[in-house]
């Protein structure tokens, strides 16, 4: 009697559950079958797909490029707004953008831009010289509200851009207070994209949630932490572009969940994947691997104000002690090259004559003995978050710990939550720390000066390394407009950095993305902001 009731109850429970599951399962299959057909709509391409879902790790902070500094914001704004000049497809050469041509004066103090004609903002107003002037006036007046403007176009208390004036409808003249070598590269950066003056004059902060630019796509909708939707700008001034009808940026914070979503066809592109996913992507013929050209450096900083790294011999010894090639093979899956300079080889001014410190534990031991190093344990800081230049801080730190132990330098690995890590490192509290940098504008100044000049102690120079000779070279290079002379200055600067060894430069990595096999023409840009106007489905 007892048994029977139990059985009937159990059977009932199983029945109910399986019906629920079956119902869900069945309807899902039906849906996924019709999904592709329904998204197609009225398109010309053969697979019929014109909607791209782009999966990425985080959401944007705001859609006004002038007020943000995070890459995830620029990823979207690069498709909504345009800059006066553009970077090349996969490099940092300067090409026409909203300006079709430009002419610098002999002394490098005046630049005259001819603008594209017939370009309109998404709100229907005209793009013209007046609009450019108003954008620059807005950035200049905003002070710290526009962080990139103050780092790129303000030196000390001096405004680099003295004035911007409109001459007629299509000519803009920039007057500089001092020559600035990377001036055009700066203008090509996403934060200096031109927005509709009508929009920001009506509401200074409105662009953050309601962007109005001239780009190939228009803003549609934003569901915070979930998705941002943009659609084709039908009035885009270049005929035939963009090829997609709609792009949806979806945030999927977990790396493996993002790859799962790509495998399940829920997204079409997955950005920011781990190097360890490379093999599984390559072995899947429904997917393609996309490599982003490298413009970064991952390094081990040695704080020059803390013993034992206040001794240059100890720093050189550590450079000899670390086996970079093995690090690259083990943790970057070969998607990196060992570094010898503080900037990657694609940057003009890179000094390839620097020999680099070869892996030589014996030499390291000798240097340590020479320096009189007492065998004191050091703290080795491991980055808590993965970055393209440092895919797994903890494991890389463990490998380095082993390398250092081999030459008689004991170390303890420590790590902090990311904002804490940066804050403490900035105050010089670390002995040796892992960190890295991705270039903003592809200029040498953005690497060597930003990361190693005495001016940037308390900001990006976390090692507190300060060399006056280097400083003179770097400051001279900032205003040197002759490309050859400028490169010579940077080559000399790299020699000084090499000799003083404030870092162990570890690697220049190649970040990877993956996409469905039918996606065409996806070109990943080294800055991380990819234009999607020419992308389409086969």
């Amino acid at each position, binding site marked *: 009697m007892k048994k029977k009731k139990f059985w009937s109850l159990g059977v009932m429970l199983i029945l109910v559950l399986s019906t629920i599951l079956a119902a869900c399962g069945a309807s899902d299959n039906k849906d996924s079958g019709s999904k592709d057909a329904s998204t197609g709509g009225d398109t010309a391409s053969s697979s019929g797909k014109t909607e791209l879902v782009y999966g990425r790790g985080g959401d944007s902070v705001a859609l006004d490029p002038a007020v943000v500094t995070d890459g995830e914001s620029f990823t979207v704004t690069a498709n909504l707004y345009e800059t006066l000049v553009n970077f090349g497809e996969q490099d940092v050469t300067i090409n026409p953008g909203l300006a079709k041509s430009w002419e610098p004066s002999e002394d490098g103090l005046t630049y005259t831009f001819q603008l594209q004609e017939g370009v309109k903002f998404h709100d229907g107003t005209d793009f013209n010289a007046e609009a450019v002037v108003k954008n620059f006036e807005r950035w200049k007046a905003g*002070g710290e509200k526009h962080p990139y403007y*103050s780092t790129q176009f303000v030196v000390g208390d001096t405004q680099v851009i003295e004035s911007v004036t409109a001459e007629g409808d299509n000519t803009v003249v920039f007057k500089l207070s001092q020559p600035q070598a990377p001036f055009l590269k700066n203008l090509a950066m996403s934060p200096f994209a031109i927005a509709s003056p009508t929009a920001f004059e009506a509401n200074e902060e409105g662009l953050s949630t309601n962007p109005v630019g001239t780009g190939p796509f228009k803003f549609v909708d934003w569901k915070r932490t979930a998705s941002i939707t943009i659609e084709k700008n039908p009035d885009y001034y270049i005929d035939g572009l963009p090829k997609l009808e709609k792009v949806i940026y979806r945030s999927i914070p977990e790396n493996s969940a993002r790859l799962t979503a790509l495998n399940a066809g829920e997204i079409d592109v997955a950005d920011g994947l781990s190097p360890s996913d490379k093999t599984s992507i390559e072995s899947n013929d429904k997917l393609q691997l996309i490599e982003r050209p490298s413009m970064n450096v991952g390094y081990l900083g040695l704080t020059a104000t803390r013993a034992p790294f206040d001794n240059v011999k100890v720093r050189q010894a550590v450079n000899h002690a670390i086996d970079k090639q093995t690090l690259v093979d083990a943790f970057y899956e070969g998607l990196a090259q060992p570094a010898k300079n503080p900037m990657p080889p694609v940057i003009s001014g890179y000094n390839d004559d620097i020999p680099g410190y070869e892996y030589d534990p014996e030499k390291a031991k000798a240097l340590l003995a020479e320096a009189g190093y007492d065998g004191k344990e050091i703290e080795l800081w491991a980055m808590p978050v993965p970055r393209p230049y440092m895919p797994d801080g903890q494991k890389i730190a463990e490998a380095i710990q082993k390398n250092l132990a081999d030459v008689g330098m004991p170390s303890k690995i420590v790590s902090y939550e990311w904002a804490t890590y940066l804050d403490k490192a900035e105050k010089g509290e670390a002995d040796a720390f892992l960190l890295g940098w991705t270039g903003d504008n592809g200029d040498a100044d953005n690497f060597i000066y930003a990361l190693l000049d005495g001016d940037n102690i308390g900001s990006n120079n976390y090692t507190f390394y300060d060399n006056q000779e280097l400083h003179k070279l770097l400051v001279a290079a900032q205003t040197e407009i002759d490309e050859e002379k400028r490169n010579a200055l940077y080559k000399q600067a790299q020699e000084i950095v090499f000799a003083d060894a404030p870092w162990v430069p570890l690697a220049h990595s190649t970040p990877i993305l993956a996409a469905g096999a039918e996606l065409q023409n996806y070109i990943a840009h080294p800055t991380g902001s990819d234009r999607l106007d020419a992308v389409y489905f086969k």
Partner: protein
Amino acid sequence: MLHYMGRRLLQLIPVLLGMSFIVFMLIRAIPGNPAQVILGQQATKEAVEALNASLGLDQPWFTQYFRYLGGVLQGDLGVSLRTKLPVSEEIFPYLAATAELALFAMIIAVIIGVNAGIISAWFQNSWFDYTAMVIALIGVSVPVFWLGLMEQWAFSVKLDWFPSSGRENVRDPITPITHFYLIDTLIQGRFDQFTEVLKRLVLPGMALATIPMAIIARMTRSSMLEVMRSDYVRTARAKGQKMFVVVYKHALKNAIIPVLTIIGLQTGLLLGGAILTETIFSWPGIGRYIYEAIGFRDYPVIQSGILVIAFIFIMINLIVDLLYTVIDPRIKYK
């Protein structure tokens, strides 16, 4: 009863005050500076200081605290340092997303957990009892993170039954009204979207339900076992009542009180504690909202987010306490 409720609501004040104070001091005690995070690694010291001043972060802590408190009393939860939007406006969609998921998970947990507990107690020491309790033990110990990834692999990639992540099909977005998507899609008569939302709730819901389900099952079982041994149950059985009625009507009523407490506590915990599930399934919920705010040192969002969760937690427990009187007339509050 009203008197009791009034007293409980009054107790809210010191709890929330103390809570807000602790959170306020804690997030300022950890290193890191919102202005630095907003301006990025490139920023100069001067710019950071200027931004600190314009955000009011250079003021002494008590000025900042009382200004914040004054705002909260007027229903102003502050403005997010990062997005520049009022927290009171921004927080609701996240809260709704988590509430929808947590309630869905709790319904699964309660239905399966309570029944498994009852059946285990009813057929104590049977194979069902043993299996259910072993599963429950695994349930409380399995890492949600691993479970979530396994679910995605099995049910999305291999079987293709459920979408792997997200709250809606982004290609066919839902127009939010109440931000509870199950309700919104019904209001708009979009039944296709309704099933889509329901399907998307299944995997994160199951992952989130595992732990409470296991706890509820174990609690129900032990509570039921105790009640089943009592005299009145024996009397009911001696009277010749059907076993099913004895268990589900007579015994359960007395056994459910401690279970109800657990259900209340677990529901509250799910609201703030769904962060792992939210991350794996990219669910735009309150846990991730606050977690990301911590990374950005977005003080107003952290303070107000935790305050709101604490408030809801307390309210849920108040409701549970009041439910006791409904289930057990012997319980009376004065």
